[in-house]
């Protein structure tokens, strides 16, 4: 009776060394030669939802870049009035579903009859430009100050941490509105559209940096004490080398993830400011501005509200899905 299990135990104990060696070999072969980038890419490829988000993001970027071309192909100039498409008494589009037709792919605006298709495309251009550039500003400032605070410590850390706490305790949207409304309408000789884009990038980017700064500081604090930094220093490396060759590459993953996740927030902030009338000035198209115009018409021409709102939703969702996927792929704790 007891022979069976005992036999099996001895069976197992006869071969473990060989088994383990084989196991270890296979494991090492699989791990060796795979960088974090490759591991992350492999994981990301399996995450269909994140990939779909990424594809939508790329599609939106292409659409934004090609906005002038696409508008010429399938739309009408963004400031061209089409009063013939509008019911003169109700000032709503004549056609069904907000005037959607072969000539006006997404319908026309109430009152003016401007082509929504073109305005949505140009809105994407503004929205994505503001979101990307301000994310870049936040990341640049946040990384520099976060690194400095975490690496130098002492009074530099206290000052930077205080400033970050202070900025996070600020009524931010209120301040963004206030700042945007007192800054001049045109700067650097740019037109009113790009001047305002620049102002928005500055304001949104500035208020976003503490989020990245905190994360970079925290990571730097823990990395600074690791053995590889000590090894590098004992080999005679100076601070700049440790900062840029040892620490920064290890910070790349969190920085990339949080930059990706700050973009949808920026899109929402830009749209909010435009909705409140302090973002992109009319008649320049913006999604938030279109939603704000739609307030007066939402019960009689709901499409005019649904199209820009839906665009904001799709864009933000796509960035969120992609960012979440990227975080899971780069996070060593993830399964």
């Amino acid at each position: 009776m007891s022979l069976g299990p005992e036999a099996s135990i001895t069976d197992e104990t006869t071969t473990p060394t060989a088994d383990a060696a084989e196991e270890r070999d296979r494991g090492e072969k699989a791990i060796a030669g795979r960088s974090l980038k490759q591991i992350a890419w492999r994981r990301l490829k399996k995450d269909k939802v994140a990939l779909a988000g990424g594809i939508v993001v790329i599609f939106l970027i292409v659409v934004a870049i090609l906005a002038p071309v696409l508008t010429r192909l399938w739309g009408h100039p963004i400031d061209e009035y089409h009063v013939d498409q509008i019911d003169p008494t109700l000032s709503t589009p004549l056609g069904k579903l907000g005037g959607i037709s072969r000539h006006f792919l997404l319908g026309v605006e109430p009152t003016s009859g401007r082509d929504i298709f073109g305005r949505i495309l140009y809105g994407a251009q503004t929205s994505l430009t503001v979101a990307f550039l301000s994310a870049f500003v936040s990341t640049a400032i946040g990384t520099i100050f976060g690194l400095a605070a975490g690496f130098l410590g002492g009074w530099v850390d206290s000052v930077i941490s205080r400033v970050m706490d202070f900025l996070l305790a600020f009524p931010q949207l209120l301040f963004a509105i206030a700042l945007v409304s007192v800054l001049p309408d045109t700067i650097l000789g740019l037109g009113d559209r790009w001047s305002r884009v620049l102002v928005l990038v500055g304001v949104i980017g500035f208020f976003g940096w503490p989020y990245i700064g905190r994360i970079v500081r925290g990571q730097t604090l823990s990395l600074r004490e690791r053995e590889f930094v000590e090894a590098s220093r004992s080999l005679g490396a100076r601070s700049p080398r440790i900062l840029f060759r040892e620490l920064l590459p290890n910070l790349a993953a969190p920085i990339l993830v949080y930059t990706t996740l700050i973009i949808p927030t920026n899109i929402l902030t830009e749209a909010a400011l435009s909705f409140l009338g302090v973002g992109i000035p009319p008649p320049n198209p913006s999604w938030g501005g279109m939603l704000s115009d739609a307030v007066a018409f939402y019960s009689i021409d709901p499409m005019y509200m649904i199209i820009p709102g839906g665009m904001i939703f799709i864009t933000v969702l796509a960035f969120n899905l992609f960012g979440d996927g990227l975080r899971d792929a780069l996070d060593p704790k993830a399964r």
Partner: protein
Amino acid sequence: MLAYIIRRVINSIITLLVVTAVTFAIFFMVPKLTGSDPALLYIGKNSDPASVQGIRIKLGLNDPIPVQYGKFLKGLVAGRDYVNGNDITHCPAPCLGYSFKTDQEVTPLLVGDLSVTLSLAVGAAILWVLMGVAIGVLSALRRGSFADRGAMTVALAGVSLPVYFTGLLASAIFIRWLGWLPESNYVPLTQNPGDWFVSLILPWVTLAFLFAATYARLTRANMLETLGEDYIRTARAKGLRERSVIGKHALRSGLTPIVTIFGLDLGALLGGAILTENVFNLRGLGYQALTAIRGNDLPVILGVTLIAAFFIVAANFVVDLVYGVIDPRVRLA
């Protein structure tokens, strides 16, 4: 403990001073730099030089900016008088200034707005905490189930929907098409509690939906992390009932981070839910702030900023204190 509280209070006051100083600087420096006159902003461009000069003297706009800031602070704690010859306007403490645009004292104006914002924020907060935490915990416990995936999909959509879109959509659906709710403006609680409730249902639900989505995702993630801890396995291994494992061990540490976020979110909202208030035409602090910014009404802007910053700072303070009580791992230094 007492030393810690005192230190935190001093820090909070410094933060508030810096916020007001920065606001002050922006709205008084920028017109100077761009060459426009704050006195003109107050009373419009077509006024005669004499009355512009009168406004300058009365508001103290001829004083250097630090002096003006000092007078503002003095008014806040002791009240102040606006004097131009025989024309004296008294403003009792806490004096946030005098809005010459609307010809009103700022303090009572904002106190009225605050009641609207309070109604909105507190009602929505109750809704979103109940919904968000419940959904998050249930999702974590039934991880991978159909309900979990469904809830998380809705939550992800929820965090990607701006409140100024959901608000319009909700109004269109529930007021215009289905007719379930009347089209109503805000009714004060003291006037008619029933109408107050009805007028706030949509704003509450819209605002709470956004936050509930965030909280559900956060709660789920925290719970999953906690449920993976060794002490949960130990609790199960020693034969504890699942209800005690979840209720006594998992919830406590799984929900502590939520307390922090909740305090900060509520604090930020009490300073004015700018977007929600503007979508639903609620005359709260956020609505007032936007009107004031559009009209360059500095005393009102300054007042709202100060109130908003006060709530944020106070929320931070309360959260830190509460945290020390509910999380034994945090010991106050």
